[in-house]
């Protein structure tokens, strides 16, 4: 998995690419998000558009990241969920936990609200 972080105002946008699966990307995801939290970043938007595969381990890390950010008083939201990842979140009812957006400007605007 590759992760690129860019800033848009006070929101850190994390563009993920590739697989978030056990032994390949799951721990890396946690490290990237924890790194941002340690730097005091509270608003994080994860762009999933180029994530090709996710498994239960990757989903678990995503949930862990959500909890870490929320516990620090921040907001972690998801952008551009591929349909199959949407399905994986839906069957475990996690889709109700995350705020998910299809448009980056729309997602960014919600942090200001």
């Amino acid at each position, binding site marked *: 998995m590759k992760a690129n972080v860019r800033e848009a105002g006070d929101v850190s946008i994390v563009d993920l690419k590739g697989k978030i699966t*056990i032994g390949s990307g799951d721990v890396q995801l946690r490290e990237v998000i924890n790194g941002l939290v340690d730097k005091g970043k509270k608003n994080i938007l994860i762009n999933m558009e180029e994530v090709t595969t996710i498994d*239960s*381990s990757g989903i678990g*890390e995503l*949930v862990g990241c959500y909890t870490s950010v929320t516990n620090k008083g921040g907001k972690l939201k998801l952008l551009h969920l591929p349909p199959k990842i949407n399905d*994986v979140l839906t069957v475990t009812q996690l889709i109700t936990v995350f705020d998910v957006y299809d448009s980056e400007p729309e997602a960014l605007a919600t942090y200001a609200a």
Partner: protein
Amino acid sequence: MSLSSRFENIELAQHLCGKLLEGREVPEETRHWLLMALREALANAIKHGNRQDAAKRIHLEMDVVDENLQIRIRDEGEGFEPSQVDDPLAPENRLKTSGRGIFYMKTFMDDVRFQRVEGGGMEIVLTKNLGSAKESAKEKEGKRT
């Protein structure tokens, strides 16, 4: 076949399962989800079964009989009690970072069975009826047209 307890071998097993399905007109959607179930079962066996012990092996058999794909995975670990696994949909478990693998297997396959193996280890058997998957895909296609 027998695999070492490394996560990299999950990709190899998925590739071989994909080869087994070639020419059987399995809908892409079905193929995707059953390969995910295979991934989850192997990850479970490697991580929780063999605890990534390099000395322990994962035993894998895959076959298609009468349109039924059957995947049999055996680890050399201590085993576990499937009924003791938490329900990931329960509100108190929803934000846990683990415990969804078996749920995904059961969601994406027709049948999932666990059994302790004499002499140690746990065996999981995943079954998917490819014929009904094809029929279901045809019905969906028919509704679209």
